[in-house]
């Protein structure tokens, strides 16, 4: 019911709003806080603890933007959204940016009036199965019931994959990630499909995590990243370059601990990034220390990754594709110059 209301509200907002608000940056600065759409609860990406604090990779992406724009990573208002609500909320201006494990696809980029501002996690779709079934490969899944979350690219990939391999399935579609997990635990379905990162997160929340396993097949490309409204290029640049700054910071060895020191150091590339040389901040319409604030308060990409999804977290995901380009991954940020 709640999401229906949100969608309706957003549609109503789209009908009444007089014109597309041109300057998201000015709006955010005037308001003094960043409104950021996140998931309703996905460990490692965006999850609210019992004290009301949000944590996760997507949450940190929001915080970094707030640090760059407002100088304070805590000036963020998080808006939890289901997969179905997210785009309407962004289109209608209810949020300033969406950072909600959202896959960058052609349709979404071209027909929704939105722009993807980069990739903060390279993912792929996989399957979670009960070990008791004795299934070792996704190709043995003919006739299976599949639990899936509504309004995701996974619904389409699943259909494609089963069609490609001439297999049948029945999709049991739930609204939220938690309902999907409950359906899986209650044996409503044989397998649960989602992005691999989410599968590990969901598995960690199962009553008995060891009873389920993630199958080796990855059936799709799922580049996840922050999204902004189309037509506000200044804001688009800010979100894009804040993420790039964090990735560049990792590559250059700048961390939250040594950022001040490095800014005062001698490396010209680092100094340009951290604002002690050049005018990278001014070109974005921000203060010179935009990237310094983001890195100092939130950390570089590696810190963000390790804190939320890395090997020492319950999710225990290795860097894999998400390592720097010179360390076997595909993370490659354009230079700040």
């Amino acid at each position, binding site marked *: *019911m709640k999401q*229906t209301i949100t*969608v*309706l509200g*957003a*549609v109503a907002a*789209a*009908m*009444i*709003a*007089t*014109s*597309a608000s041109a300057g998201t940056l000015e709006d955010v600065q005037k308001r003094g806080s960043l409104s950021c759409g996140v998931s309703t609860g996905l460990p490692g990406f965006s999850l609210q603890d019992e004290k009301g604090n949000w944590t996760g990779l997507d949450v940190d992406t929001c915080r970094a933007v707030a640090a760059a724009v407002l100088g304070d990573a805590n000036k963020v208002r998080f808006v939890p959204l289901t*997969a*179905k609500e997210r*785009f*309407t909320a962004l*289109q209608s201006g209810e949020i300033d940016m969406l950072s909600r494990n959202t896959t960058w696809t052609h*349709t*979404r980029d071209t*027909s*929704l*009036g939105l722009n993807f501002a980069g990739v903060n996690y390279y993912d792929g779709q996989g399957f979670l199965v009960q070990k008791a*079934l004795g299934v070792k490969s996704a190709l043995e*899944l*003919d*006739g*299976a*019931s599949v639990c899936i979350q*509504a*309004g*995701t690219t996974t*619904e*389409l990939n*699943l*259909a*494609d994959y*089963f*069609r490609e391999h001439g297999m049948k*399935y*029945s*999709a*049991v*579609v*739930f*609204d939220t990630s938690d*309902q999907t997990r*409950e*359906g899986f635990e*209650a*044996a*409503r*379905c*044989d397998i649960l499909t989602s992005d691999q990162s989410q599968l590990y997160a969901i598995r960690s929340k199962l009553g008995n995590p060891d009873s389920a396993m993630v199958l080796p097949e990855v059936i799709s490309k799922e580049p996840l990243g922050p999204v902004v*409204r*189309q*037509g506000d290029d200044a804001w688009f640049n800010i979100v894009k370059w804040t993420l790039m700054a964090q990735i560049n910071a990792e590559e250059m060895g700048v961390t939250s601990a040594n950022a001040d020191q490095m800014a005062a150091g001698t490396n010209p590339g680092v100094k340009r990034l951290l604002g002690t040389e050049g005018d990278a901040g001014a070109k974005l319409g921000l203060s010179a220390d935009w990237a310094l604030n983001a890195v100092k308060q939130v950390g570089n990409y590696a810190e963000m990754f390790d804190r939320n999804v890395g090997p020492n977290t319950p999710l225990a995901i290795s860097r894999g594709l998400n390592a720097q380009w010179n360390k076997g991954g595909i993370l490659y940020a354009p230079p700040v110059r």
Partner: protein
Amino acid sequence: MADPERTQSKTAIWNDPTFRSIAFQVIAAVLIVGSIWYLFDNTMTNMERRGITTGFGFLGETSGFGILMSLIEYDETHTYGRTFLVGLLNTLLVSFLGIIAATILGFILGVARLSHNWLIAKIATVYVEVLRNLPLLLQIFFWYIAVLQTLPHPRQSFNFADSFFLNARGFYVPGPVPESGFGIVMLLFFAAIVATVFLARWAHKRQDQTGQQFPVFWSGVGLIIVVPLVVFYLLGAPMSFDYPALRGFNFQGGITIIPELIALWLALTMYTAAFIGEIVRAGIQGVSHGQTEAAHALGLRHGPTLRLVIIPQAMRIIIPPLTSQYLNLAKNSSLATAIGYPDLVGVFMGTTLNQTGQAVEIVAMTMAVYLTMSLSISAFMNWFNKRMALVER
């Protein structure tokens, strides 16, 4: 005759009541049409400026996703237009089943509350007071999560005579497969229904004229059930059954009734029946006791009194609020999306909206569907109400 005095002191035009009433209506109409046009135009302009695709072209595109339950042929190669139909039919199915069952249960409850049997009356009272005071969404979750999801895994299904199976994924029943000759049985069945209608009319007329009664009910049963059944066996029972069997992960074959449908149907039925029970009780109590006494004085027994005197008068009180309950049930069926029953809101306003991103069109279509559905129920019930209304002779 015009009075010369009055025509001379002609009132100013804005004080003329006829002019005023027309003028205000025109102004109101212009304002309403104008604001609707403003909203529409503004929406289109805004969406175009933000680069959001508009229009209904998406209905012809391939959907690419599967739907759990469909009354018509559907797979992921069909179009978004088809997903609309699938969702619509699923909504209609659960609304229809719910209305039928809630009406039956509601009437039983209403009569039971007035029962002279203390236990029956109290049970009905407790039922009504509990069920109508719990939020519907909670009841849906109760049936789905607390009852149906605790059923066993398919491999440990409850097995009834190797042909009915019940597990966490649904209720599996044998599916009938008609063979050659079954058409004759169906034809006879429908012919019998028509014949019974005519028989009833003839019997009614004869009773009006001669006062003689005819056992319409039992002869109707004989015509509709016994005759086709006899022919069915004479033809050598031209029907086989497709039994569900555990193949691979799930039961295949037969008919699957998904737990989402069962949960939603049970919750909608039991919730609405509590309200209908109260409406029926009020309707019956609304008929003055003198009517019963008069009927008894005329020598009518208790059954015919209820059937011929009390119920027809009570119906006049019952039908208008009953219509509201039907409308509520149909609209409440959209809570389906909470448990993943693929109704119109879940399939069309959910997945289809998200895959195409065309919120305005899809929300408008969905609203139009619910409006049409509600107005149709309302129109039918108004027609029925007119038929049941007291005819003055």
